[in-house]
C-alpha cells in the first residue's frame, strides 16, 4: 500500500456563534421541550394542581355551595380593618363626649370554667384556667359590634395589657391583680388618641401605650368590662383533634372609679354585647362585673383565598419531581451525559443550565396553576368568605408557591445527579418533601411531631403558603392542620433552600470528579 500525499490541514468555513451560558441554556431547554412526555407531565402538573385546589375549595371550611356560589355560616361582625372579629363582652358603660379619662382599681379577677351544661363533655380537667379571661376599662366608639375601641385590662394569666382595635396587644407593667397587689388602670382620651397607664398604688403611673383610633367619634361609650373566652380541652388522637369546649365566666372587683372630662353623668348601663353572658352589681363605690362566653379579638382566622386556591401544590409537585429526576437520570441511563459533556465540558455550567431549566419550568407550572385556580376560586366564593390577607401576601403566596415548586425541582435534580437512578431519586424526594407535608397537615401526627417535621425537613418550605396571622391574644389551635406552620414563611422557605444548596454543592462536586 502506498501512502498518498498528505493534503493540507482541514479548515472549516462554518460560522460559529457564541459559546456561552445562554447557548447552553438554549440547548438544555431544547432537550426539555423535545421530549413530549415531559411537556405532557408539566401540563398534567398544572391540571392536577388546579383541580385539587378547586375541589379542596368547594369542600372547604363551612362551605355551603349552591348553584356554584359558596357561602360560609352566619357572618361575624367586621372590625375596623375590614376583617371579621369577635366582639362579645359584658359592658358597664356611660357616654363620654369629647376628651376625658377613666381610672379604676381591680382588686380581684377570677375565672370560673363552667361544666358542660349538657354534661356530655364531662367536667373540665383539674387546674384548668383561662389565661385570657379579662376585665378592665374600655373606650369604645359605640355598642355596635365590631366598632373601634381601646382598653386597659387585667388578665388571669397574662398580666395587665393594653389592647385596641382587636389586633393590637401591648403588655403592661403589672402581673395578675389580687387584693394583695391590686392593679390600677387608667385610660385617657384626647381626640382620637387613647393612652393607657397602669399603676400598683394609684400614685405612680406608667404609660403602657397609645392607640390612634382614626375617625373616633366625639361621643363614645366608656366604662368597665369583663369577658372570657371558653376553655378548650384539646386531645390529639390519631386522625384529628378531639376538643371539649367549656364556657368560662370572668369575675372582677372594681373600686376607686374616677372619671374626668365630659362625662354625661347618666346612670351606668349594663349590656351584654355580642351575645356574651354576664351581669354587674354596684356596691357603694365598687363594682362587681361578670362576663363570659365571649372575647374581644380578631376572629379565629379561617383559610384565605390564596392559600386554599393553591392547596393542590403538592400534587403538581409530584409530577414535577418526576420530570426533574428524569431530566438528569436519562442522561446517565442512556450514556447521553457523555454527549452533553463533550459538547459542554464545563460541568458546573451544565448543572446550572439544567437547574435553571427545571426551575423555570416548575415556576411556570406554579404560576399557570395559580392563574387558573385563583379566578375559579374567586368565582365560587363570595369575596367576604375568607380572611383578607392583602395583595402583598397574596402575591407572596402565589409567587412563593411557584418558587417552592422550582426549588424542590432543583433539589430533585441535584439528588438525581448524585443518585443517577430515577426510582431512587423520586422515592427519596417524596419521602423528604411530600410525606412530611402530608403527615403534618392531615392530622395523622399530633402537633408536636408535626411542627418538628415542618421545621427540620425540606417540607418546611411549604410555610411560604402561610397567610393567616397568628395572634398571641387569641386562644386558638395553631397547628399545621389548621394552616399554621411552625416557621415563618421565609424561614421555612430558607430551610428548603438550604437543603437544595447543600444538595447542589454535592452534585457539583461529584459531577466534576466522577468519570462520565
Amino acid at each position, binding site marked *: *500500500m*502506498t*501512502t*498518498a500525499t*498528505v*493534503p*493540507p*490541514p*482541514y*479548515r*472549516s*468555513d*462554518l460560522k*460559529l*456563534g*457564541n*459559546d456561552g451560558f445562554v*447557548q*447552553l441554556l*438554549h*440547548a*438544555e431547554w*431544547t*432537550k426539555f421541550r*423535545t*421530549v*413530549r*412526555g415531559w411537556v405532557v407531565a408539566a401540563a398534567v402538573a398544572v391540571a392536577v394542581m388546579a383541580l385539587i385546589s378547586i375541589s379542596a375549595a368547594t369542600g372547604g371550611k363551612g362551605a355551603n355551595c349552591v348553584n356554584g356560589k359558596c357561602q360560609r355560616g352566619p357572618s361575624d361582625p367586621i372590625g375596623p380593618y375590614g376583617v371579621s372579629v369577635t366582639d362579645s363582652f359584658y359592658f358597664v358603660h356611660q357616654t363620654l363626649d369629647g376628651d376625658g379619662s377613666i381610672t379604676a382599681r381591680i382588686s380581684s379577677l377570677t375565672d370560673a370554667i363552667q361544666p358542660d351544661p349538657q354534661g356530655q363533655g364531662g367536667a373540665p380537667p383539674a387546674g384548668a384556667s383561662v389565661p385570657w379571661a379579662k376585665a378592665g376599662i374600655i373606650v369604645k366608639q359605640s355598642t355596635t359590634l365590631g366598632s373601634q375601641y381601646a382598653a386597659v385590662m387585667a388578665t388571669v394569666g397574662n398580666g395587665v395589657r393594653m389592647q385596641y382595635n382587636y389586633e393590637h396587644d401591648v403588655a403592661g407593667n403589672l402581673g395578675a391583680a389580687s387584693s394583695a397587689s391590686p392593679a390600677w388602670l387608667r385610660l385617657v382620651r384626647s381626640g382620637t388618641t387613647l393612652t393607657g397607664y397602669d399603676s400598683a398604688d394609684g400614685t405612680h403611673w406608667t404609660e403602657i401605650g397609645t392607640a390612634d383610633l382614626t375617625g373616633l367619634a366625639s361621643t363614645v361609650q366608656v366604662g368597665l368590662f369583663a369577658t372570657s373566652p371558653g376553655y378548650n380541652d384539646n386531645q390529639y388522637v390519631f386522625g384529628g383533634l378531639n376538643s371539649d369546649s367549656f364556657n368560662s365566666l370572668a369575675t372582677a372587683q372594681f373600686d376607686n372609679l374616677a372619671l374626668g372630662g365630659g362625662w354625661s353623668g347618666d346612670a351606668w348601663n349594663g349590656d351584654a354585647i355580642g351575645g356574651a353572658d354576664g351581669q354587674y352589681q354596684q356596691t357603694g363605690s365598687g363594682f362587681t362585673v361578670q362576663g363570659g362566653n365571649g372575647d374581644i379579638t380578631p376572629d379565629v382566622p379561617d383559610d384565605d383565598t390564596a392559600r386554599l386556591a393553591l392547596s393542590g401544590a403538592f400534587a403538581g409537585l409530584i409530577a414535577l419531581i418526576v420530570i426533574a429526576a428524569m431530566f438528569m437520570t*436519562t442522561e446517565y441511563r*442512556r*450514556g*447521553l451525559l*457523555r*454527549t452533553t*459533556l*463533550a*459538547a*459542554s*465540558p*464545563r460541568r458546573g455550567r451544565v448543572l446550572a443550565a439544567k437547574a435553571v431549566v427545571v426551575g423555570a419550568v416548575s415556576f411556570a407550572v406554579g404560576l399557570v396553576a395559580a392563574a387558573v385556580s385563583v379566578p375559579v376560586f374567586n368565582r365560587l366564593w363570595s369575596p367576604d368568605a375568607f380572611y383578607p390577607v392583602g395583595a402583598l401576601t397574596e402575591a407572596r403566596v402565589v409567587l412563593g408557591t411557584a418558587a417552592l415548586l422550582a426549588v424542590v425541582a432543583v433539589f430533585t435534580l441535584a439528588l438525581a445527579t448524585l443518585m443517577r437512578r430515577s426510582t431512587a431519586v423520586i422515592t427519596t424526594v417524596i419521602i423528604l418533601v411530600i410525606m412530611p407535608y402530608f403527615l403534618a397537615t392531615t392530622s395523622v401526627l399530633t402537633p408536636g411531631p408535626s411542627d418538628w417535621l415542618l421545621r427540620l425537613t425540606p417540607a418546611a418550605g411549604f410555610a411560604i403558603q402561610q397567610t393567616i396571622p397568628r395572634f398571641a391574644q387569641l386562644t386558638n389551635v395553631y397547628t399545621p392542620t389548621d394552616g399554621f406552620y411552625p416557621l415563618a414563611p421565609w424561614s421555612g422557605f430558607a430551610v428548603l433552600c438550604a437543603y437544595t444548596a447543600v444538595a447542589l454543592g454535592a452534585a457539583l462536586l461529584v459531577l466534576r*470528579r466522577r*468519570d*462520565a
Partner: protein
Amino acid sequence: MEATIEVNGLRKRFGPTVALDDLSFTVKPGSVTGFVGPNGAGKSTTMRVVLGLDSVDAGTALIGGKPYRSLRHPLSHVGSLLDPAALQPSRSARNHLLWLAHSQGLSAGRVDEILETSGLERVARRRAGGYSLGMRQRLGLAAAMLADPPVLMLDEPFNGLDPEGIVWMRGFLRSLAAQGRAVLVSSHLMGELQGTATHLVVIGRGRLVADTGVSELIDAASGGRVALRTTARSEAMTVLANAGATVAVTGPDTLTVTGPSSERIMALLSEGGVPFSEVSAHRATLEEAYMELTRDSVEFRAAESGFVRTDGEVAR
C-alpha cells in the same frame, strides 16, 4: 492550531485493573489512523480521556495542543462518536442534533444541512428509539460532523453496518482524510480497516504495541517469504536448502521459502533443473500482521477466561 490528537504517557486504573499503561501516540491530519486492539485493550477509555470525560492518573491528552476541557465550541474542534445508542429514545434525530447545535451556537439551518448530507432527512422527525443500529450510526456521525471539525474520533463505527454500509463507511473515512482532517477510528477487527487506515496505533492491555504505517507493518509481517508451487517438492527443497534458505511445506505442491528473494529462487531452481509453476512474494494481510503483533498481548482469551467480552469495555 494544528488539528492533531496527542496522547502522552496516559495512565489510568479502575481499581485493580490497569486500563491505560503509559500510552502515547499522535494522530496527524490528512490520514485515517486505525486504533486497534482486542476488546478491553483501552481504546474506548483512551477516547473518553481525550474528550475530557474520564480523568487519568497521569499523562495528558491534547487536541491541537490544548486539553479538551479548555476548548471553546469543542464540537468544532473534535467530532466524536462514542456510542450510537446514547440517545433519548423519544427525541427525534432532528431535535437531538438541534440541542447539540444550540450548545455550540449553531443554527437550525446547520442541522438541516447535516441531516441532508447524512441521508437522515426522511426519518429526521421520527423518534430515535425506533432507529436501526445503522441509522443510529449515521445519526452519531451526523452529530460528530455537526460543527465541521478538523479532527474526528470514532469508536467502532463499523459495528452493526451491513456490507454495503461498511464499504460506504470506508469511503467516507477516506474522504474525510483527503479533506485534510485527522481521523482516529477504533476497531477490534483489523479487517474492517483494510484499505482505509494508512496509519495504525495498536494497543493491548492499555499499552502501546505498535505505532506504525500500514504498509511498513505489512512488509514487516510478510518477512520476505516467497510462496513456491512445484510438482517436484523434495528436489526443490534440497536445492533451496543447500543454498541456505529455510523451506516449509505448506501443501502437497506448495512450499514457503524464507531467505532468498523470488528472483534468486527462480535462478536456483532453473540451475538445478527443478520444474516450478509459480513463484510469488507472500504478502501478509493486515489481519495476519495484526495477529502477529498482538499474539502476546491479547487480554481476554476464550481459552483462559472462559468467555470473550464483546462490549469492548473494561469492567468497572
